């Protein structure tokens, strides 16, 4: 039996970092009686158009319809000040319907501070809550998200793993590259795109080496992001190698991928890569020397 699972240490650290850990769940034990955390948070926040005390009251009413109405109001307002009472609601717990709406509200508000309230729900037993919490966490760009997504990549829910793999690329979590490489051949196709967004140097060579070993439909999502990366991150030489590899495959999907890359190449993109794409699409070697 190996020692303690590092995954657990990660989530432990994540929870410890989150605002949830020391006394945020359920009733707010750290708050003064009758004064919820939302009000406390609101005190130092910029003035809000929302009736925060009224919304707080509705969210604590225990009446599902009232709670949903309050969440609707907050979501429609788009006011970041509305995040804190929703986070407190998550910390207390509620019915699945309310929780889903609350998580969706935090997602739409996109406040990094909401991460702590969302983290526990990324491990909820109900898949829809768990997945929704992961998506919301990605949207908040919380500093907790990287570790939590890496942890989610190890979980037993394939949808959760896909969300996590994609999120790690979107959030530029470079530390996750080794895990994404481990996940890629294990039916986590979304890892390819993220690796295309995150790899550097030898990692990109390794990714390129998987072309032909893994199914093309798994690998294709890595190609365009990789070709669109700036030269400081991925060399033109490697990109041309990739283009040439795709040209030599001489398949319709590979050809289409080259067309997509050319179409998406920014005007200030590498002229060498652009030339290589154009040559490859005409059936010539991507590197002029050959």
């Amino acid at each position, binding site marked *: *039996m190996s020692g303690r*699972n590092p995954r657990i240490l990660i989530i432990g650290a994540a929870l410890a970092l989150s605002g949830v850990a020391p006394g945020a*769940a359920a*009733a707010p*034990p750290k708050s003064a009686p009758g004064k919820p955390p939302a009000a406390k948070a609101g005190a130092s926040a910029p003035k809000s158009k929302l009736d925060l005390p009224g919304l707080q009251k509705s969210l604590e009413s225990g009446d599902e319809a009232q709670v949903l109405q309050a969440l609707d109001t907050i979501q429609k307002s788009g006011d970041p000040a509305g995040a804190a009472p929703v986070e407190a609601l998550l910390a207390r717990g509620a019915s699945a319907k309310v929780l889903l709406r609350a998580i969706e509200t935090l997602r739409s508000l996109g406040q990094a501070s909401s991460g702590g309230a969302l983290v*526990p729900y990324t491990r*909820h037993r*109900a898949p829809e809550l768990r997945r929704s919490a992961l998506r919301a966490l990605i949207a908040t760009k919380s500093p907790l998200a990287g570790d939590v997504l890496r942890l989610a990549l190890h*979980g037993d829910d394939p949808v959760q793993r896909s969300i996590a793999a994609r999120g790690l690329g979107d959030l530029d979590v470079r530390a996750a590259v080794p895990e994404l490489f481990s996940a890629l051949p*294990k039916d986590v196709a979304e890892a390819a795109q993220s690796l295309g967004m995150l790899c550097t140097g030898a990692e990109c060579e390794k990714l390129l080496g998987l072309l032909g070993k893994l199914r093309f439909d798994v690998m294709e999502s890595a190609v365009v992001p990789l070709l669109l990366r700036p030269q400081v991150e991925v060399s033109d030489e490697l990109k041309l190698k990739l283009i040439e590899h795709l040209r030599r495959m001489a398949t319709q999907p590979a050809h289409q991928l080259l067309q997509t890359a050319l179409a998406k190449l920014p005007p200030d993109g590498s002229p060498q890569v652009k030339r290589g794409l154009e040559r490859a699409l005409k059936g010539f070697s991507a590197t002029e020397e050959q």
Partner: protein
Amino acid sequence: MFRLLSAWAGGIALLGSACAGSGVQGTGAPFSETWQADQGESIAALEKRLRSTPAPAATPVAVGVNDVGLFGVTLPDGKPWSHAGGADTLPIVAGNVVVASRAGELFALDAKTGQQLWSLSIKGRKLRGAGDDGALTVAVVAAESPHKSRLIAVNRAGSVVREVDSAVELGYPAVQGGIAFVPWNNQYVSAVELNSGEEVARLLLREIVTQARNFDGQLWFGEKGLVRFDDKIHLATTNQATRVALPERALPGKPVWLGSGNQLWPVSSSARLKIRLAAVPSVSDGSAHFSNHAFLASYFRVVFGLSDRDGSVRFVKSLRADTLGVGAAKRGFATCDASGKVTLLSDSGGDAGSVELGGRLTACTLDVSAASFTQKQPPPALAEQLGEALNDLTPDMAVAQKLLLDELVKLDQPIVTKILIDLTSSAKIPPDLRAAARALIATRRSGKQYMLAALERHYDYINDVLLPPPLGPLADALSAMNEVAATPLLARHLNDPANEMTDVERAAQALSKLATPAEYEELRTFFALYRATADEPSLVSAVVAIGGALLRIGGPPGRTLVERAAQDPLTQTDVKRGLTALLTSEAQPSGPKAPGVAQTAQRP
């Protein structure tokens, strides 16, 4: 071929019983049903006469059979030989010859070299049993249809010195000093002087007798139990002869030791050849027992060494292919498997070497009753042997796995806990066995270190940990052991959705008893996540149990949490009821326990 034929074709010839009861003088034609019991006089006199001419022990040899031929090797380290052409029934090792039949021919090979000694026609019959006294080979051959047994005695030159056709079924014969011992009618052993063809003595047994066997030069008669051909043989009718029998023991496939000597053992892929027992009777200090004080049982790819006193398991070994033959030696055992490997074991199951017969086999015969094998490497501890065998067995071996598991839990060693945990974590273990192992883990009270180590592990898709630890059984065991060191590990598992809900429930119940304030945050998170979303009874029970833990270790914040949840309309109805009951019983210390918090017993 020259034959000195004396046949009672078509039935039993009756030559009178004038000599009955007159010691070793002829009692007449063999297999007479009008024979009068002589209180063991004739057989006792014969035993006395033959005492100075013991039968030779069998050459230790393994003989495999496939479609191509016979493959033999003397043990422990002889030179392998082969003989073209197969066999239709199991070949038999008799003294220093190997006797077999094929396509209406009976033939004998030199056990050491495989060289053919003789062959003769047996006209549609097959080999049933054989013995050899160093000069003569006797065989009983029979047709598939009943009542066509034939006793044949052949000398080394291949001449038939006696041939007796019988309408009664003749069993497995032996021979000593020119006297053939032939069981028949499930009751008698007729001693037939091969030169004269006369029955010179008869043994009447009070138990079924179909076998006359030579073990290491000593004759024994019987089937389920054997009586020894010694100076007490005349007491057989009163059950006072020297007797051995294996202890009663439930074993997978219900193997029998020698089985009926009246049957043929066809070479086939039948399971019958793979479920066997091997034992060699022996006498020391005047008492009969079995060599090694043990016997060997096979069940496809596993062999068990069992005590001859009580049948308890002494060792276990799994093999790379199905066992086709087993043999007990004076010291040690041997097995022969379908891959053509002969594995030698010491009396304690340790490695004593192996040899290859040189081809995949359909059947295999072993006679090592006169051999002694030297241990080259001692076996691991029995618990480890059991664990190894359990891991090696394929899912279709459920019966053997059950026995191994039953034996494993009889051992009061901490390592057993680890083996059980490993079983529950192995993807190749069938569900029934995993469930049984889980149930047994819950009953363990030793091996705490292995339990805690298992709880450190969580489901991990990327690192191929595709089965979480047996959380529920571990929680039950650790709770019963009052093991507070487990509480942080159990608390972490509460919030891992990869665990089965019923396991989480049991962890929650353990924590309701063991949790310390250090686990407050994990417990509170769980409580918040599920107090209003509990959608199945086990989750309700878990939430209520954690509510109880929060009341016990959470101080005023914990109490407030539970009280508010008990009042919140969004809290799931059953959870609310359970929490209210908890709070009520808190107020009344002697009150009833909250529903759903009681320990659940006897769950896998």
